[in-house]
């Protein structure tokens, strides 16, 4: 059972890749297994998240299931 995390913008540099496979499960558990620096950045308040292409209003209670894709979207670059 695995899910996928997708990192956009500077989060990709921090993660060292544009995406990675993670075990399915609650988001807190998924983040706890990542590098601490990356996990902190992913939790930044200006980082929005999208589950399977749908923006989420908040990140409470997210549980990743098999094949789910969770994208971390830092502020867009503008001008």
């Amino acid at each position, binding site marked *: 059972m695995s899910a996928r995390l997708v990192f*956009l913008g*500077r989060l990709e*540099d921090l993660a060292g890749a544009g995406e990675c496979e993670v075990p399915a499960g609650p988001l807190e558990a998924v983040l706890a297994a990542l590098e601490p620096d990356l996990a902190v950045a992913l939790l930044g308040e200006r980082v929005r998240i*999208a589950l399977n*292409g749908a923006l989420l209003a908040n990140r409470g209670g997210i549980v990743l299931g098999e094949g789910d894709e969770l994208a971390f*979207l830092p*502020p867009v*670059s*503008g*001008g």
Partner: protein
Amino acid sequence: MPGDAAGASLVDVRLLDAPFDPAAELAAFAAAHGGAGGIASFLGQVRAGDGVECLELRHYGPLTLPGMQDLARTTQARWQLEGLLIIHRTGQMAPLDPIVLVAAAARHRRDALAAVDYAMDHLKSQSWFWKREQCGGVWTWIEPRKQDFADLARWD
């Protein structure tokens, strides 16, 4: 309303990962909407002379094009347009390469110019693009600019 027949014929939104020819696109748009009387446009190109060797635009497939289509529908609903074109590049671009082209056709000049202005402000500040530049071989991610938020606030 993706199934809206009028919208489908009036709005042309494209996200491209290869170069495009803005002059040819504008000529085709003007020919298709010539009856409108007026066509306003904005073309953004990679600046030359800033020492930027390469510009890269990343996007997120599930959000970026749908977001542009939403913007096109909002723009079309806000002004009296007879046609609206939004083309945006992704991927790596060299100086002078076209990045974005927005064109609006309308019977009244104000509508066409305001629609282009509005669409550009929202493309720049609210669309799902992440930009990095290569200078001296080093890549740097571009942060949002305060000016973009000021531009956006004009429409509230």
